[in-house]
């Protein structure tokens, strides 16, 4: 596994992962002031209640609980397996999908609703054609 690297030269793996010039990376989201629906990223209209002009930018929580998962043993060529594809409900709203790390890829070891933390690490060493490093988010058991 690639060592954590959060240098400011890394680019974000998704557009809602924000890397400020100073301070820690965070996940950006928005909440609808009309119905409370929470989303990753930004948007203008609420897909739930269709209200306009009610979306407020927030920082998503960095802890949550495992809602569902799959253990991926076969993927596209060149993708390292196995990995745990995890669906996590963040505390305070919003659901993210990501890799659940630092735990054995064994259904006996993975519990629904187990508390997890969001961590920011180098994107598994993946670089674009210009050689840029990327920063991504991952889940790890919280305990």
């Amino acid at each position: 596994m690639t060592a954590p690297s959060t240098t400011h030269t890394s680019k974000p793996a998704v557009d809602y992962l924000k890397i400020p010039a100073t301070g820690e990376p965070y996940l950006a989201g928005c909440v609808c002031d009309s119905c409370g629906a929470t989303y990753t990223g930004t948007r203008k209209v609420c897909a739930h209640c269709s209200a306009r002009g009610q979306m407020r930018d927030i920082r998503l929580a960095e802890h949550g609980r495992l809602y569902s998962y799959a253990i991926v043993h076969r993927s596209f060529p060149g993708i390292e397996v196995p990995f745990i594809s995890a669906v996590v409900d963040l505390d305070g709203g919003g659901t993210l999908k990501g890799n659940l790390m630092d735990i054995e890829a064994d259904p006996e070891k993975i519990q629904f609703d187990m508390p997890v933390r969001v961590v920011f690490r180098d994107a598994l060493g993946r670089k674009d054609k210009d050689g840029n490093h990327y920063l991504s988010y991952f889940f790890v058991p919280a305990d």
Partner: protein
Amino acid sequence: MNDEVYVVGVDMLKFGRFPDRTVPDLGAEAALLALDDAGLDIRQMQALYCGNLFQANGMVGQRILQQIGQTGIPVVNCANACATGATAFREAWMSIKAGVHDVALAVGVEQMGRGLLGGGGGNAGIPTEGLLGGGTMPTVFAEAGMEHSRKHGTTFEQFAKVSVKNHHHSTMNPKAMYQVETPLETVMNAEMISYPNTKLMCSVNVDGSAAAVLCSGRKVRELGLTDRAVRIRASALTSDPWQERNLVMPDVNTCTRIAADAAYEQAGVGPEDLDLVELHDCFATAEILHYENLGLCADGEGGRFIDEGHATLGGRTPVNLSGGLLSKGHPLGATGIANIYEVVTHLRGNAGARQVDGARLGLTHVIGLGSACAIHILERV
């Protein structure tokens, strides 16, 4: 307006792999078979609705007519993920229902590549599969199955039994890709793709086509086709309503539930009235969710429904007697008409060894991820 719409002709190719053929060629063959089944000619068709996904910009419908008769009729090409074929069928139904046409042809056709579907995503300059979780179809439907597990304790073994059953049914269907019994241990010990879906719990990538001729009640009587006619009691199409986990977890449940509600209401029947169901078993995990989504059993009873054999030939509501997508195969654009072929074949009493005795009412269901759900209810008259 036409009050009643009927299927008067329907057929499909035995699904398989035809790398040397073209999409219009496969579609044309099914179209001719369906016309022959109806005893009608392409010159009698007033419109063609053609479903194909992977060549959605390729004017496949027109290219089919270039092979079997360019009569100048309106052609609509449609793409709606795995609901593509059913959407084409429904467009034909709507045009007749509206009184615009009295007889129309619907064709669904697909040539599939090999390997995994889905994935990709993300706008970064790096691949995001295996970085932001998984996006392959086996993974998406594994996560949907595990959601059922967390709610109801559904087990890997119960999901695997779906595949055993559908493979068993396919041994009686000469048009299925595979006709091989696959015992539980074979299914569970097959290569794990995305837990809990093993390779034998994933639909088979095949090429194929299916076609149907739809007709108004007035035209059925005029053409003397009453003996061949199967009545379309309901046609419902939905998209996925907002759900809190939509952004990362496509919801195949709610769109199925609202489509089922609409279809049962249109037909004036309930799930207890159905003699057979062809539902969208793109993965074994999905089938158990849809037992409940379609009301074949109560919520939380899906695992027991498979355990107790209610979905097997001879059971309370046999499901996927064709072998389903798991064994008959899943050529995306053709699937939604091929399952209508299966139900019509039972309603006509022509299903051979897998025939449901005295079948009167059947339901077809498909889901296109993204999402679209189409349900049709068909009745013997």
